[in-house]
């Protein structure tokens, strides 16, 4: 859980770094993004890492599902009166729910862009050397002209933020990395990560919607 979680966190950084190119909506920016998308779907080393990524997503979800089943079984009779807020944060207790929402979002997200890029019938443009290349940019731009789609992305980035808020520092604790000197730093980095990364992700659809 912890290892795949941390790997997925690292993926978020690279995914964000690449997709911030979408903010440049000029023709040159569109060209650059499409070239980047082609590189990411064809370069062999990226392909290897992408299979590790698919495995991590599936393992993280499946392991989380198994652990949640076990945890449910561990308390067959519920308390009649509970006050869980007295000792823990709601998002820490609802990681399974937040994770499920993210998984559903991932299905929608990957169907719309990842699946279309790989196997979909999307328009092509020509690159600088005159060869045709898939115009993923216009697929993304078209998606983010729909208000409900932009709203979905913004809300889901909020969900992701809470999942990361607990998950980032929790992964270190699960791996046994707890130290009086370093744990406060890990926790602060975790809060920063959980807030900044989703905000920048959410910025992309909002920006494209406004400037469409």
């Amino acid at each position: 859980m912890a290892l795949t979680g941390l790997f997925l966190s690292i993926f978020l950084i690279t995914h964000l770094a690449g997709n911030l190119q979408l903010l440049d909506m000029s023709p040159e920016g569109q060209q650059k993004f499409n070239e980047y998308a082609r590189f990411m779907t064809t370069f062999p080393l990226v392909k290897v890492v992408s299979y590790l990524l698919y495995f991590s997503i599936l393992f993280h979800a499946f392991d989380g599902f198994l652990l949640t089943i076990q945890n449910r079984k561990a308390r067959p009779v519920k308390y009649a009166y509970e006050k869980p807020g007295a000792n823990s944060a709601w998002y820490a207790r609802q990681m399974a729910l937040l994770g499920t929402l993210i998984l559903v979002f991932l299905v929608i997200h990957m169907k719309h862009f990842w699946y279309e890029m790989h196997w979909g019938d999307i328009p092509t443009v020509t690159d600088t050397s005159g060869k045709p290349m898939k115009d993923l940019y216009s697929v993304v731009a078209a998606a983010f002209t729909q208000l409900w789609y932009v709203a979905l992305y913004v809300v889901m980035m909020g969900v992701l933020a809470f999942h990361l808020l607990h998950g980032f520092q929790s992964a270190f604790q699960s791996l046994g990395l707890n130290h009086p000197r370093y744990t406060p730093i890990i926790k602060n980095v975790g809060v920063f990560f959980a807030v900044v990364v989703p905000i920048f992700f959410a910025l992309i659809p909002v920006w494209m919607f406004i400037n469409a």
Partner: protein
Amino acid sequence: MGNMKLTLKIWRQNGPNDQGKMVSYPVNNVSEDMSFLEMLDVLNDDLVRKGEDPIAFDHDCREGICGSCSLFINGEAHGPGRLITTCQLHMRKFKDGDTIHVEPWRAEAFPVIKDLAVNRSAFDRIQAAGGFVTVNTSGNLVDGNAVPIPKDDADKAFDAATCIGCGACVATCVNSSAMLFVAAKVSQFALLPQGKPEAKRRVLAMVEQMDKEGFGNCSNTGACEVECPKGISLEHIARMNREYLAASVTKE
């Protein structure tokens, strides 16, 4: 006798296989200086005089060191207040006219025996699986300074050893996980030279037994640390995770 009037909603269950339900009891003449258990004594005295079945609950030392008293009071293990057991919870924490919910520890691994008393022998079996040093410690006293131990390690081992095995960590945990208890028992030995020779075997055996008993998994919510009457730190869980990972990888 005091003058607080309270309504108690208490879990009544006639035996392990009984369905069980919450039952309301009015309690009068409660003094704010009573402990929660003394208030229950007053209620039981009342019930016995009326010829009713008194409420079963665990208690022994009534000074916060034995780990017998349990009770999930108003949604919290050992009730409101920090670093206390139920016997150390005073009625001044409540107000006249309050309704107080009292339930047993809820976990598959802690089956209800009767009313508020649960069977915590799962903890004994975890302890028996590895929570000891096999060297004979009686009759062959060695000099205290023969084996130097860093003060910080000795302090941390002692902090872990203050665990009284009450089960509040399990009762509080959203997953009914026993990680804080097992971590305390692993840490108190792992930090000391006397515990080192059996460290690998110990952590593997205790975690295996913990899983067998049907406790849930740790998701690091930190609720256990907050509700623990002895303030056992999550650092011990991390230490157990380290010990466990290392032992799993290097075992032969």
